[in-house]
């Protein structure tokens, strides 16, 4: 009975979503305050029912109700409770429900914190979000309900995919979806602005904190995903350019471009149409990612491909949302290029170049991801392009962006001072040169030198600007949240670059055969293999190796890599990672060789690998800090910012 309540709650949520979509939009069009006032209660009601539905599914997992087909497919009597909890979003149906729940969280947050928005605008924003919700609820109810019954109920479930039985997977999807779905808010702002005529740029200021907040979550989600694949896939890599990763990376690239373009539009009135377009693109790519992952269009042997109706439905929905919004854009986008004029050497120009590069990179990833499909269409066969394509092109496209990062904050709006920028180039360049020489002397290869150079260069820019503010700005106004966020995020880029390039350059990886008692030297470390014994977990048994790692004769780590066999029969490698700020030691168990206890082992020494995730987390932190800037919550600017000192503009308390 209880699972049916979940289904009923979803249907009620759908009805409320319809109300939330239609009435406020109608009210905004007809200037009817009563209709517009429906938006907030409808959003709150929808949230209650979606949350109820989600709670019902969670309950079914907690009580092991195997009469629910979804539970039977993704749980097992021996599955620990925390993985039963995360199993709620462990497969297609439940993950859609999570999507909808998070969309509702964003909507309710917006309904609660949009008191400073003009009523018409708020009604339109909530209406657009209602429309998105309707689409996903329909999709769930008609093609992917998680509440379908399996009668007679099996006595035990098939278990959650072991790859997903990892702490990282408990929080990775919610974070990622907070980002994906969060872009729906920027999208709704853009559509509302287009519908209302987009006559002024206030909407951008209101959209900025939401966009930064969503972007920060997406960053966190991607970082967690990368860390998880490193720890769980047992093969030491941190990014694979596979379609699922790309699906999250494309919105991130566009989102990064968007948060910068928004700054230009808000402060200078420029790039209006471009900001609108990027807002649409960021969310469209989130939807597209969902389509690519869920429809099975890319890999026909993909697990999600079971129901062809799903692919057709998402394609139609994608067509309506993206096609519709691009049509609105074509009809309503501001025809005249607005904004204050800017010189060739100005902050605007730098941001435009960065935007173009980021957009081109997103397009490059999109083409690479869709290549199998394009190959198909032109009868070239269904083939993938891999890191050889993505890696080289991506580095080419991102190099100019990294080069420009230190200048961004120094370049004034409108017209930058060339000599000041020259000074920055001199100091950042000298620091980079120093770092490069140091790396060369220490014996790094080209990538290690490049990583050090890039990190020093970006880091010097950040420190220089922080110092300039400290000296020149009046106390108390030196570091507004928006600027601190930017500096932290930019520094994060530097840390990420150092981590990514240094770990690529300096990692030592060996596949070896070791007999018990035998040692292998990797870098400066001796890995002594002590043998393998069997251990048991709640729903698995494992061959667990034991390795002692010695450095200069002293034991630095004892590692226990596992090869698990889950109750469902699936085999899963659990790499042992000894994490450190300067290096990770990483061991994965391969195959037993012969009958004398010898094993194939993969041993890695991965210097600086943590840095790339730490850099990602700094970018995330930057996004969160920026979104907290009080200026964004002001209803109207009291005065337009003075060129070049925008961050010194009069600040108001929250409206």
């Amino acid at each position: 009975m209880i699972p049916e309540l979940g289904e009923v709650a979803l249907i009620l949520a759908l009805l409320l979503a319809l109300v939330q979509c239609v009435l406020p939009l109608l009210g905004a069009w007809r200037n009817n305050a009563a209709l517009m006032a429906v938006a907030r209660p409808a959003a709150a009601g929808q949230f209650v029912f979606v949350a109820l539905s989600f709670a019902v599914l969670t309950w079914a997992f907690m009580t092991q109700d195997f009469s629910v087909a979804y539970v039977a497919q993704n749980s097992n009597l021996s599955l620990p409770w925390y993985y039963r909890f995360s199993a709620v979003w462990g497969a297609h149906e439940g993950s859609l429900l999570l999507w909808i729940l998070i969309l509702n969280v964003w909507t309710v947050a917006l309904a609660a914190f949009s008191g400073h928005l003009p009523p018409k605008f708020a009604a339109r924003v909530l209406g657009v979000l209602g429309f998105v919700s309707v689409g996903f609820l329909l999709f769930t109810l008609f093609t992917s309900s998680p509440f379908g019954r399996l009668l007679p109920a099996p006595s035990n479930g098939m278990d959650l995919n072991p790859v997903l039985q990892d702490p990282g997977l408990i929080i990775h999807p919610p974070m990622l979806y907070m980002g994906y779905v969060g872009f729906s808010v920027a999208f709704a702002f853009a559509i509302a602005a287009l519908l209302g005529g987009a006559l002024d740029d206030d909407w951008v200021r209101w959209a900025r904190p939401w966009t930064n907040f969503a972007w920060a979550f997406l960053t966190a989600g991607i970082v967690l995903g990368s860390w998880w694949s490193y720890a769980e896939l047992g093969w030491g890599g941190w990014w694979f350019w596979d379609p699922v990763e790309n699906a999250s990376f494309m919105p991130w690239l566009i989102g990064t471009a968007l948060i910068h373009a928004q700054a230009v539009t808000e402060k200078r009135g420029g790039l209006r149409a471009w900001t609108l377009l990027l807002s649409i693109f960021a969310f469209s790519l989130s939807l597209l990612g969902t389509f690519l992952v869920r429809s099975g269009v890319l890999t026909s042997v993909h697990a999600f491909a079971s129901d062809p109706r799903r692919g057709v439905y998402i394609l139609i929905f994608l067509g309506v949302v993206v096609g519709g919004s691009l049509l609105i854009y074509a009809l309503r986008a501001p025809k005249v290029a607005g904004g204050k004029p800017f010189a060739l050497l100005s902050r605007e120009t730098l941001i435009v170049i960065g935007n173009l590069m980021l957009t081109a990179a997103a397009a490059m990833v999109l083409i690479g991801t869709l290549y199998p499909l394009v190959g198909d269409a032109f009868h070239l066969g269904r083939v993938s392009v891999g890191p050889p394509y993505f890696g080289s092109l991506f580095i080419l496209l991102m190099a100019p962006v990294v080069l420009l990062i230190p200048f961004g904050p120094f370049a004034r709006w409108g017209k930058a001072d060339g000599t000041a920028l020259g000074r920055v180039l001199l100091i950042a360049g000298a620091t980079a040169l120093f770092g490069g020489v140091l790396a060369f002397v220490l014996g790094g290869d080209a990538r290690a030198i490049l990583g050090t150079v890039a990190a020093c260069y970006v880091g010097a820019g950040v420190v220089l600007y922080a110092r300039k503010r400290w000296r020149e700005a009046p106390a108390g106004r030196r570091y507004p949240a928006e600027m601190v966020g930017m500096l932290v995020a930019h520094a994060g880029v530097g840390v990420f670059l150092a981590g990514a390039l240094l770990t690529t350059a300096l990692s030592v990886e060996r596949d070896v055969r070791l007999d018990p008692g035998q040692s292998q030297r990797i870098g400066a470390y001796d890995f002594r293999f002590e043998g393998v014994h069997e251990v048991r977990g709640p729903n698995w048994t494992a061959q667990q190796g034991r390795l002692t790692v010695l450095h200069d004769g002293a034991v630095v780590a004892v590692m226990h890599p596992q090869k698990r066999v889950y109750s469902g029969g699936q085999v899963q490698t659990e790499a042992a990672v000894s994490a450190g700020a300067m290096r990770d030691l990483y061991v994965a168990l391969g195959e037993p060789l012969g009958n004398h206890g010898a094993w194939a082992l993969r041993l890695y020494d991965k210097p600086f690998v943590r840095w790339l995730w730490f850099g990602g987390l700094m970018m995330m932190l930057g996004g969160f800090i920026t979104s907290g800037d009080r200026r964004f919550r002001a209803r109207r600017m009291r005065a337009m910012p003075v060129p070049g000192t925008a961050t010194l503009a009069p600040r108001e308390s929250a409206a």
Partner: protein
Amino acid sequence: MNRLLPLAAFLLLVVLFGYGLWWNARHDVTAVPSPLIGKPAPAFDLPQLHDPALRVTKADLLGKPYLLNVFASWCFACGDEHPVLMAEARALGLPVIGYDYKDKPADAKAWLAAHGDPYALVITDQSGDTAINFGVYGAPETFLIDADGIIRYKHIGPLTPGVIRDQLAPQLRKLGVQPAPGI
């Protein structure tokens, strides 16, 4: 006109996706005829992955039919194909030879160690030069080569149980190879 460009580009994408869905609904993954079918396989001389000192030439493999499976550790679709090979390679009744394409040997070894090694032998073509003669433009691809070194069948994209049953197995029987029951 300018403002219609994004919409136009998106519509093109939709058409492509629609085509993809339509294609998926009608096909499993099918073979594309190759100009090399019925012709002698190009000569090659490549090192073994697990022992680069040993080289394998086309002449070494003459005498009985074999399957040449082009893969790479960087290739996402190969990950889809791999479990199928792991399950069925031994049951095909002929050796499956791995052709590691444009890949670092260390990566390929790690990949095989992580996912299992279904191959009787793995040869490696780091530069991809030999693969050009085979007309390889991506991975995975699979060639069936007979005892006289003639390419009898080629499949582009991941092998699936369906492809093996419906396309590869009949070709194998023509060569007198008897796959295990159930294929």
